């Protein structure tokens, strides 16, 4: 199968070259329109054994992840592939990423309002509650759909999409077939009369179905599982509202402990924004909405849909220790954020303005009640549980309050101050029994410009908590020579650990050189074991000690 696809793709590509070369003039024009671009990334690490922090002995000593994308475009035609290399994959990446291969390749062309892509594609319907394929190399996440992706704009303001294929599963495909369609109508674009109205409305709907063989000796499993959803977006002047609802029929799977309850998800977002201020309010409720093209898949494997996380994401090292990870079997979350800038030259704004931001986010369990007196919640082979949509579960998963002050005081000094309160349910989020974490973190981030090119940035962070590993202190000094050089030294110190031997320093020394689109970074130090999350998807990063080299480039 794979053989066939590759041959067809190769012939199409070759066909374009040979066909055009037959006509000298046409060929010249063809070449003029031809464009090749791509990128490359390499991450390699030499590992030291470090039993203090729990870094294991790595038998290969050095591990690496690398990939290169090559894209070719010629007017309406494009083709590309990604070469991936794991010999062997870095610690913390799934061991099934092993070897060398081309797990991503596509050919695409646009004609008569159609865009047709064969091979791998990334796409999403609405906000992704029923379908989203995407990739993030930092997470080792890729659920691209290999098959067909057709998009058509039959009329201004109307977009219809169709997809049909199998999902990438490391260097193979998942067992299920995914088929789906989506339609979006931008009302103001469809009716000329409404083009310039302040009130803008768009609506959309999607349907996705997966098929997987089933021959379970005990349970009658659905071979076809459908999910569908509807959405609306309304904007008026400075206001914007987005709402989306999705439903999935019964889909017993490893993730939901093989219960037959249908699933659903609701996402509501509201924003108000005008110069100098912005306000955002969002809520999400998901109930048994994990949707995978293999009912036996675990973790992040073979996700068909995407459940966005509304928990505040931070890049500061200490508060990032406790980052929320989406709970696929059900959660109720909300986030509110306000941001305000005091104008330049005002009393509180000073010469350059002052920005304040407040964020609050919270996640709870959804309400769950037994289906009858004799059946415990989540019993395999049953309807699992009953859930009242408007009741919130008592179990708190996560809470985050963040206040940020940022101000440029002068041409040479900038200051950012942050405070975070985080409550974190490690039993639910990390899956091992532990008391809930309550933590307070302060961050002071200062940038001093020495002259036009040289600058020093320092970060001081302190996290106070009695639970988990206890309190931490963090310090970082960064020296940059713009635009090319970067040097930094940092230390993360777990001084508050209740076990004296675990009061460890996680030091790191790093340097980077960037020229054009190429960046080379070298760092040496210790990496704490923990969970790395991007966009609600997380992976476990084991403790490591060693020398890391990263090279990234694009052309």
């Amino acid at each position, binding site marked *: 199968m*794979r053989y066939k696809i590759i041959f067809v793709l*190769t012939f199409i*590509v*070759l066909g374009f*070259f040979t066909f055009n*070369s037959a006509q000298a003039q046409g*060929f*010249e024009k063809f*070449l003029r329109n*031809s*464009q*090749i*671009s791509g*990128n490359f990334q390499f991450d390699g690490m030499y590992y030291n054994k470090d039993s203090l922090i729990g870094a294991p002995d790595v038998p290969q000593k050095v591990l690496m992840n690398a990939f290169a994308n090559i894209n*070719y475009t010629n007017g309406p035609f494009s083709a590309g*592939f990604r*070469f991936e290399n794991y010999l062997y994959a870095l610690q913390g990446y799934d061991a099934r990423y092993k070897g*060398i*291969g*081309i797990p991503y390749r596509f050919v695409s062309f646009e004609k008569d309002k159609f865009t047709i892509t064969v091979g791998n594609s*990334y*796409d999403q319907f609405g*906000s*992704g509650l029923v379908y989203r394929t*995407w990739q993030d*190399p930092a997470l080792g996440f890729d659920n691209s759909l290999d098959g067909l992706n057709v998009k058509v704009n039959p009329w201004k303001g109307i*977009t219809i999409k169709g997809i049909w294929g199998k999902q990438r599963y490391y260097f193979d495909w998942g067992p299920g077939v995914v088929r789906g369609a989506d339609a979006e109508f*931008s009302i103001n*674009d469809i009716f000329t009369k409404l083009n310039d109205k302040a009130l803008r409305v768009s609506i959309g709907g999607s349907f996705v179905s997966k098929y997987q063989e089933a021959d379970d000796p005990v349970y009658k499993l659905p071979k076809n599982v459908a999910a569908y959803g509807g959405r609306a977006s309304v904007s008026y002047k400075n206001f*914007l509202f987005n709402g989306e609802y999705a439903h999935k029929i019964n889909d017993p799977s490893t993730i939901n402990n093989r219960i037959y309850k249908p699933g659903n998800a609701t*996402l509501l977002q509201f924003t108000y*924004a*005008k*110069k*100098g*201020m*912005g306000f*955002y309010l969002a809520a999400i409720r998901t109930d048994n909405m994990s949707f995978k093209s293999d009912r036996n898949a675990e973790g992040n494997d073979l996700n068909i849909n*995407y459940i*966005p996380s509304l928990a505040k994401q*931070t890049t500061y090292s200490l508060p990032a220790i406790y980052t929320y990870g989406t709970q696929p079997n059900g959660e109720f979350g909300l986030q509110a*954020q306000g*941001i305000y*800038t005091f104008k330049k030259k005002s009393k509180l704004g000073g010469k350059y*303005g002052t920005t304040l931001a407040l964020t609050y986010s919270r996640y709870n369990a959804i309400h769950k009640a037994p289906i009858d007196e004799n059946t415990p919640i989540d019993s395999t082979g049953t309807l699992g549980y009953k859930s009242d949509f408007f009741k919130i579960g008592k179990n708190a998963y996560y809470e985050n309050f963040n206040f940020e002050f940022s101000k440029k005081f002068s041409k040479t000094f900038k200051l950012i101050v942050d405070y975070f309160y985080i409550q974190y349910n490690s039993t639910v989020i990390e899956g091992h029994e532990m008391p809930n974490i309550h933590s307070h973190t302060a961050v002071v981030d200062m940038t001093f*410009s020495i002259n*036009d*090119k040289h*600058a020093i*940035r320092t970060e001081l962070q302190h996290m106070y908590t009695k639970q988990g590993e206890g309190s931490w202190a963090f310090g970082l000094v960064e020296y940059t020579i*713009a*635009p090319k050089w970067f040097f930094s030294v940092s230390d993360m110190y777990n001084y508050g650990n209740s076990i004296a031997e675990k009061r460890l320093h996680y030091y790191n020394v790093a340097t*980077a050189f*960037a*020229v*054009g*689109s190429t960046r080379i970074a070298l760092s040496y130090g210790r990496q704490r074991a923990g969970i790395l999350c991007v966009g*609600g998807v997380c992976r476990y990063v084991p403790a490591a000690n060693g020398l890391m080299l990263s090279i*990234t480039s*694009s052309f």
Partner: protein
Amino acid sequence: MKTTVNFALIFLLSVTMAFAQEQQPANPLGLKKIPATDLKTLDGKTFNTAAIANEGKPVIISFWATWCKPCINELTTIADVYQDWQEETGVKLIAISIDDSKTSANVSPLVNGKNWDYEVYLDINSDFKRAMNVNLIPHTFVINGNNEIVWQHTSFSQGSELELINIVRKIAKGETLDAH
């Protein structure tokens, strides 16, 4: 596995052959035009990158996200001098947010709250990011009046904005740059 490697080789070979027959300087290894991809505006309209234009004057395209500190640092730094840059060179900055549906609704409040005057678009599933071969953000491009990429840089440190405006000045005057 073997077939995939074969495929890559055939692909590369065919591309190389195409170049080998080239008589005069053509585009493949020269300046690249920005690819045409659909993005969303902050109020939900569709915008195709083929429509990026600034009356023949340079354009800065900056890839960023609400969760990326150095990106926000770069855009905040430029915001302080943006008006001067515009008056001097006519440059326009287009900020492409790669926030996905988790944080994309947060982009407009942030952009407004920070008082940025940029043209901002949402690249919710990273289609434009892929087409522009961006690995890490911040990643900044300078586009000339013909929508060709003349310069790019990844990462930001305090003072990098001075190199950026120097490049923009040269492009605004119609000078060419050393190849990057």
